[in-house]
């Protein structure tokens, strides 16, 4: 009863403030953005920038070719993400193994993470794309798309394993202790108690890395593969116009936004479940 009253009181206070807040936010947003827009539109070079970067004719001509090439970016990203989810989790679990016996494994996991997180992705794409074929190994595919995807997987596995690990470490040790005291083995405790909590907590940073990965699929262009960015590049240099880059940019943004909203929704749902119907 007392609890309910407090809740209602706080709620109405927020609501009362909210109405004013919204109108203030609206005005300040409009002022800021219209100032920016006016400054840009009234600049001496705007007419030129408009025809060079935001040319409707170019949009019309190149939206479809760039979209077509963008399918390759999506394919690469999806395949890489699925592989990374598994590999990175394995790497994180290996790194979390306790005890002196597992030291070599932990050390290897640390070296891997340090190395592949440290090396610039573009360098690794070059190294795999041009270096591996130069070795002339039989049974190793020569395709630049394949090799670049492998390079992206290597890099992002290192990133994502760190995300997983932070999730694992954020689960309070008492959870593990409790699970073990119930008679679960170390592996069972990890699998059924620690990881489900850990993974749930790291979904937002995980998505963060995946968005990074999706943008980095454009790096495959350095191997000559005509994906969205390289298609935009081709169009841009044929026309002396940068609009195709803007088109490619819009496609990357377009796939990012739904994912961001999805994560927001996941977080909210998760919070809702944890509160088990309780109000904030």
């Amino acid at each position, binding site marked *: 009863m007392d609890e309910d009253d407090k809740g209602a009181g706080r709620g109405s206070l927020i609501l009362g403030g909210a109405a004013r807040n919204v*109108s203030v936010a*609206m*005005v300040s947003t*409009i*002022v800021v953005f*219209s*100032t920016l827009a*006016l*400054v840009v*539109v*009234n*600049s*001496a*070079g705007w007419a*030129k*920038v408009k*025809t*060079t970067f935001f040319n409707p004719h170019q949009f019309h001509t190149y939206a479809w070719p760039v979209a077509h090439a963008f399918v390759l970016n999506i394919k690469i990203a999806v395949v890489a993400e699925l592989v990374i989810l598994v590999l990175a989790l394995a790497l994180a679990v290996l790194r979390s193994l306790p005890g002196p016996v597992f030291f070599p494994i932990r050390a290897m996991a640390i070296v891997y993470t340090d190395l592949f997180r440290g090396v610039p992705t573009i360098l690794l794409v070059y190294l795999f794309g*041009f270096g591996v*074929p*130069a070795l002339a190994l039989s049974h190793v595919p*020569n*395709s*630049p798309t394949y090799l670049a995807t492998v390079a992206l997987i290597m890099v992002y596995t290192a990133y994502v394993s760190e995300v997983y690990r932070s999730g694992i470490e954020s689960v309070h040790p008492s959870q593990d202790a409790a699970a073990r005291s119930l008679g679960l083995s170390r592996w069972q405790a990890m699998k059924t108690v620690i990881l489900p909590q850990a993974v749930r907590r790291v979904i937002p940073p995980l998505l963060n890395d995946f968005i990074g990965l999706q943008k980095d699929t454009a790096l495959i*262009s*350095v*191997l*000559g*593969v*005509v994906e969205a960015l*390289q298609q935009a*590049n*081709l169009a*841009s*240099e*044929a*026309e*002396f*116009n*940068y609009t195709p880059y803007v088109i490619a940019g819009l496609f990357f943004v377009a796939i990012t936004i739904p994912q961001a909203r999805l994560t927001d929704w996941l977080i909210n749902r998760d919070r809702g479940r944890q509160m088990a119907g309780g109000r904030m």
Partner: protein
Amino acid sequence: MTRKLLIIAFAALALAASGCGSSSSSSGSSSSPSGGTTADPCAVGSLQTLTSGTLTIGTDNPAYSPYFTGGPGHEWKGQYNNDPYTGKGFEDAVAYAVAEKMGFTQQQVKWAVTHFNQSYQPGPKNFDFYLAQVSYSAHRATAADFSDSYYEVNQSVVALKSNPIAKATTLADLKQYRFGTQIGTTSYDYITQTIQPSQQPQAYNSLNDAIHALQAKQIDAIVIDLPTAFYMTAVQIPGSTVVGQFPAVAGGEHYGMVLDKGSSLTPCVNKALAALTADGTLAQLTKTWLSDKVSAPILQ
């Protein structure tokens, strides 16, 4: 209430913005040359170059043979790179010849590193004119000025001798192979429009990358202009050959210098080029620096 605020904000902004706009628009036209009506607009003194009394020429870095052949120097460092200050190589020699006709001494010529991508960006340029094997096209000419032609170019196919494509003699023979070229060249259009291969062609950011890919057998052949093809097969790619050249397209393909859209220098550069063509200098430079066109078979 909110609405009123908005209207006030908008009105204030509109006033401020219109003030900014009008002040900036008047500054452009005041700096025209003050010579009399009889003065030659292409005389050195009245040329509106980037730096008065200096002609700044832009080119790519790396600058490739046979268009630039002076060897590494200045900012142009590394293997296969060439310093344009030497005046050696076809485009290098043409640039200095044009500069001389325009009335600049060799010491008055400065070179600026400009990526091809930057040559057509809107806004101020870091060069007076840019030359790096840029092919003229009507589309491109809407965004930048082009000088008249200084070289009529043919595209050609380079492959390793060990690859079956080396035995191709017709366009139809080429269709089944995977091609690659440097991005920004018209060569890519030749691949997609003239050869129409069954496999998606590759587009590399530099010629060196295309060469690596050819040697790694990721592509079967490179399509590139003929003078570059001869240089590549002779120097850069051991065991490679020029499979053939394409017949010239209708209207031909030519290289032109890139200038800012509407540049006052364009007619002066064209005047210099016309003079170089008339007195045979351009033909002489082409003969000196570029391999003979007739020595590659034509792929029909």
